[in-house]
């Protein structure tokens, strides 16, 4: 046997080994993907939006860190991409797809109906119905109740404000919980409530948000809670400019105006994201609507270095007591959406 032939044979063996090994790997890979492959579709704004999407991203990150399983992701940059993105995830073999925000409701219900063997989950939607779709809603009224207590404890004038975004039932739910919290501490408090408007542009009108806040401050309010999306940026800034306090919403907004944001009502979307993937991984995926409240760790109030000087021991203990009361069931916060009225 010549030297050349020997080299050739060794070469063939090596190549064959590599190919077989790789094939083997691929089979292994395939097995993995068939059993479990999570995906998430972030909505407009992207995963570092310092708000909703970033909350979901934090939950995803936690899941990946704990399990070592990578989550496929897509960041939607315009409205037509939502459905495409979900379809693409399914095509790539995703076994569970998480949608972020009510704007994806239509897309997910369509794609879920077409792919009955894939599990879907969506955050902030509670009105769809599909056997393979889990929906997360939050008990915002409970979180609003807590920050209402904080507001009532922090006000010096006995007057507080609320600025909502679009005038819809969901926002009345925030308002009603907040009023309940305030009145549980100060039964005679004056509460000024303003809705920014009746069209979707009410979510993106910080100038009007600031003006509404000033109108409330003019009337004596010194703590203003907002549930108004982008409009709320104006609320927080108007309160800060006037030397009063604001309360943020959804994500931790304490840092938007350090020292002027009393606290923020947190919607823990990260909990929903983490739970979706964990349940799917462990075969515990269920469809239907899941409501996350204080008991489930779904809503909370924010405490960090930006507001620790504002949260006195008194406020803190009142908030802890209220949380305990809700957990134990001795206090039930009314949900406006159940009967469209607010009893407080």
């Amino acid at each position, binding site marked *: 046997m010549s030297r050349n032939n020997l080299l050739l044979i060794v070469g063939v063996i090596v190549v064959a080994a590599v190919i077989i090994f790789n094939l083997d790997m691929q089979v292994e890979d395939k097995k993995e993907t068939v059993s479990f492959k999570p995906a998430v579709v972030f909505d*407009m*704004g*992207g995963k*570092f*939006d*310092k*708000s909703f*999407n970033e909350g979901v991203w934090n939950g995803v990150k936690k899941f990946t860190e704990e399990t070592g399983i990578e989550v496929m992701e897509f960041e939607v*940059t*315009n409205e037509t991409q939502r459905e495409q993105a979900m379809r693409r995830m399914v095509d790539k073999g995703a076994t569970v797809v998480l949608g972020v925000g009510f704007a994806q409701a239509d897309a997910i219900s369509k794609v879920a109906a077409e792919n009955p063997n894939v599990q879907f989950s969506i955050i902030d939607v509670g009105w769809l119905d599909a056997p393979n779709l889990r929906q997360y809603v939050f008990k915002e009224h409970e979180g609003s109740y807590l920050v209402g207590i904080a507001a009532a404890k922090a006000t010096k004038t006995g007057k507080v404000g609320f600025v909502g975004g679009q005038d819809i039932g969901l926002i009345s739910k925030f308002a009603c919980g907040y009023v309940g919290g305030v009145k549980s501490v100060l039964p005679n408090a004056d509460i*000024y*409530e*303003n*809705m920014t*408007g*009746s069209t979707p*542009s*009410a979510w*993106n*009108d*910080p*100038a*009007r948000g*600031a*003006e*509404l806040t*000033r*109108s409330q401050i*003019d*009337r004596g309010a010194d703590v203003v809670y907002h549930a108004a999306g*982008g*409009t709320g*940026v*104006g609320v927080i*800034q108007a309160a800060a*400019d006037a030397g009063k306090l604001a309360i943020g919403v959804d994500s931790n907004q304490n840092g*938007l*105006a350090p020292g002027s944001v009393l606290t923020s009502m947190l919607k823990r979307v990260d909990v929903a994201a983490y739970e979706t993937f964990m349940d799917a991984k462990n075969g515990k995926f269920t469809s239907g609507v899941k409501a996350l409240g204080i008991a489930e760790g779904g809503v909370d109030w924010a405490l960090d270095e930006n507001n620790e000087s504002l949260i006195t021991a008194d406020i803190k203990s009142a908030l802890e007591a209220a949380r305990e009361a809700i957990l134990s069931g001795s206090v039930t916060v009314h949900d406006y959406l159940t009967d469209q009225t607010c009893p407080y």
Partner: protein
Amino acid sequence: MADFWFQFLLALDSSIRVATPLILGAMAGIFSERSGIIDISLEGKMLMAAFVAAAVAYGTGSPWLGAIAAIIVSIIASLIHGFACIIHRGNQVISGLAINILASGLTVIIGIALFRQGGQTPTLPKSARFNSIELPFAQYFADNIPILGVVYKELISGHNILVWLALASVGITYYILFKTTFGLRLRAVGEKPEALDSAGISVSKMRFQAIIIAGILCGLAGVYLSTATGAGFVKEMTAGKGYIALAAMIFGKWRPVPALFACLMFGFLEAVAARVQGAEFPIIGEISSDLLLALPYVLTVVLLAGFIGGVSPPRAIGQPYIKER
């Protein structure tokens, strides 16, 4: 009763703040439309300017640089509008609409690319904004002079520089339009461009000059929204203010001073709406704030329908000028 008057005063103060971008927008509209160019792109130009002002002010820390950049971008948008409908004689409404759509998409996309915060800019620190200016002796007068002192402190003092610029723009617009040769020509080009042409004055040049001025004013309106009354850009933050300015301009019959009062009235209705929302009144009960907010539009439609004196827009408005050869 004293409290009622104090609240009334504060509502007036609020009207001025709400009206400021409307006034600047309406004056921009007057310049553009008086020269014969329909300008529904007020909204888009304001939005672009608001974004650029916030982005540059955040990057450089200087609201002035932000304002300059915003005005330049707003002028560029005006020039695009002019390129389409003066040079190429395109449809002015469609060109304006295109600029609005471009503005609403582009601001968000660039915003996401630059700041990764969902199309918002980061919140601006106080030093990167136009802050309110307390006039001298405000507190002293309020304490020592009855009524007028309080009016001085609450109504006149405490506005930022753009509010003053907006009010000044009304006088300047009036002066330019009605007291200068340039203004005479500008009005003529919107009424009877062929007359101007036969006098040897370029119609295109006049119209370009008019829309550049409109661009500057729109830029200031955007600057006001994101770096004076606001502290940063939020997507779609103009929220229809450009269209309301347009309505105010029509309500003011394409004249600066009546347009100013239309803007102030729209602002006042909004300020009152904010205060009556949810409040119970004796006898009449709760007043619908939506109704108050809709009132400006209803009034504008009624006006356009010819019930209040009738309106006559510039005669050559919307028509591209074609030189006879």
